């Protein structure tokens, strides 16, 4: 089996390259007001809700 046939080969290659890949920009993110949380549990629950809202609106549009 070749090295590149391993499922985790991509991680090894990325770790060796250490190249920063450009981040696409989101152009249709649903607006929200600032929020403050006392715990990660509450924060993660809010974030899950936000992701559901994004899914319900049909996802997000991207640009380079």
């Amino acid at each position, binding site marked *: 089996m070749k090295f590149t046939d391993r499922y*985790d080969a991509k*991680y*090894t290659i*990325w*770790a*060796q*390259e*250490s*190249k*920063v*890949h*450009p*981040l*696409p920009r*989101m152009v249709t*993110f649903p*607006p*929200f*007001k*600032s*929020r*403050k*949380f*006392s*715990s*990660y549990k509450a*924060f*993660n629950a*809010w974030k899950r809700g936000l992701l559901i809202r994004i899914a319900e609106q049909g996802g997000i549009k991207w640009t380079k």
Partner: protein
Amino acid sequence: MDKVIDRFNKNGIRYLLIGGQAVRLEGMPRFSMDWDLYIPPRDEVNIKKINSLLKDELDAPLLPLGKKGENFVQTYQTSQGILQFHLGGPGLPDFDVAESRSVTHRTETGTAVKCLCGKDLLASKRKSDRPEDQADILFLEKKIRGGRA
């Protein structure tokens, strides 16, 4: 977000990039919809400076950590993207310790960003241990094993 980071750097703001964007700057080609910044939780001078620098971006002031853990995570939608301030977090060392071990990476456009070091980033990812952290953990383990973080 480069503009915000650049202003922080020029004004001596104490921050460390953590989370998915920090993993991305280590070299993992991944997406993250937000920028997570770890800041000293009760450094009121630092927090006041951040509020002043971002007065046109924040719809409510950033606050220090409360006695009962209030304001542990504060999230904002800004013109530069989603900005999340963490005043602590699972697996994160005290800010002063994390800051002393921090590393500087550059974004794809060349902006210098102070980041949690690879080992601390891996520890925080392991502690969070969410399904979405598993790829980051595998990548960081390989990077650290190869002596590149």
